[in-house]
């Protein structure tokens, strides 16, 4: 009964074990990877633990308020951004251990050579509503 964000990075996470850029995989390996991700999400739907999953385009724009009556300032995209989020999955599970277990499975998605990527995923708990009983 707690929600976690499983965060996938384009950049900024420690290097994966099977660290080959996707554009150097074979088309079949890409298909197998996509299939694995879809199956994983379907399995979580089946177990009643799925909340949301989204992928993000690698390039974005920074936006900033520039004062009353003026258009917002935009900048970027920055090639050197340290941290780049690729996408996420939100799960609703009974325990932190379960969240870690699922992130581990997601990290085993196949990559180059059909072998698991062993990609680093970040697991972040959601801040919840406060409990009713505190004292």
């Amino acid at each position: 009964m707690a929600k976690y964000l499983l965060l996938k990075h384009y950049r900024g996470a420690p290097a994966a074990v099977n660290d080959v850029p996707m554009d150097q995989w074979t088309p079949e390996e890409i298909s197998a990877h996509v299939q694995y991700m879809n199956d994983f999400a379907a399995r979580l739907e089946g177990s009643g633990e799925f909340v949301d999953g989204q992928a993000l385009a690698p390039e974005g724009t920074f936006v900033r308020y520039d004062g009353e009556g003026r258009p917002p300032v935009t900048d970027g995209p920055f090639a050197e951004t340290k941290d780049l989020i690729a996408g996420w999955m939100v799960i609703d599970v009974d325990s932190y251990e379960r969240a870690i277990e699922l992130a581990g499975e997601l990290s085993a998605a196949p990559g180059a050579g059909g072998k698991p990527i062993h990609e680093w995923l970040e697991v972040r708990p959601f801040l919840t509503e406060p409990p009713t009983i505190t004292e």
Partner: protein
Amino acid sequence: MDEALLRSLTPSVLGVLVRRGADFAAAEDAVQDALVEAVRVWPADPPRDPKGWLVTVAWRRFIDATRADAARRRREDLLDEEPTPGPAVAVDDTLALYFLCAHPSLTPSSAVALTLRAVGGLTTRQIAQAYLVPEATMAQRISRAKRTVSGVRFDQPGDVATVLRVLYLVFNEGYSGDVDLAAEAIRLTRQLAAAIDHPEVAGLLALMLLHHARRATRTAPDGSLVPLAEQDRSRWDTTSIAEGVEILQAALARDRLGEFQAQAAIAALHADAPTAGETDWVQIVEWYDELARLTDSPVVRLNRAVAVGEADGPRAGLAALAALDKSLPRYAAVAAYLHERDGDQATAARLYAEAAHKAANLAERDHLTRQAARLNAHRRR
């Protein structure tokens, strides 16, 4: 239309179907269909006997569903000897349902979902909205839960403690949405208390009522937390408090103390104090001692340290705190509070900031950040 009445009939209608030989999962689906039908039909055409109406419609739905399956599943024998309704044993049925939906083979989230649907009569959509997950996810969670308990005998007596844990979760982790889960938890616990005579069921009901009584004062209009000491006590719901206290006293008189009665006793002592300054902290410490004996929970010992700090001064509170594990949730928040009361504002500010960093919910984090900011601003002056 009286939706509360409709929902309160859910467990006994489901019980009738199961007693007539329907399997739990199919019966539960049929009752959901009947509830939906009732919401549609009753406003224009209210039945004279609501429960009878629901049983008839649900049973028809069950038969239709079974017939549709019959060729494959060979259920004709069941249809042929359609049993006459026996004497209504609604109370036992209700109790059996609580046990089934809180069965130890279920995970907490499954037990909560199944209880809200099969006992509470909520729709899957309402439960999904309450827990902020997609409806399809909640539907799967419920159908898996039903499969998990499909082999459990309906009339098998269970452990009341497992049911109480589920109801406590519904109450304590009430999220947003259209359904008031705290009120729903109270309704379900009240219904359970009517079905079984057990001091801990009474204790939990009292605990819920006493906390619910303060609900309107727990948050400011902007959503920020208002600590107990700063709540406007004139706005506490005195009817709810009186009922909680009465239920608690009757339970305590039976001399079978349990953790919910002890927690309720602490809540009652807070409710009883006309101002925060008049709180009987000495008695509250004694109840925390009882609670620690009953549960051996580190969280209880942490709360006890706060109470000791109020009863015997912040130094005594800090001494009680020193024996506890620093990694406990809210440890830093408690330490910050006691250090501030002890006059050490620098340490308190640092600990409030640390506590905010570790807070598990947004309202608490904001509250703790404000405490740190308040002390830092004061020190700069």
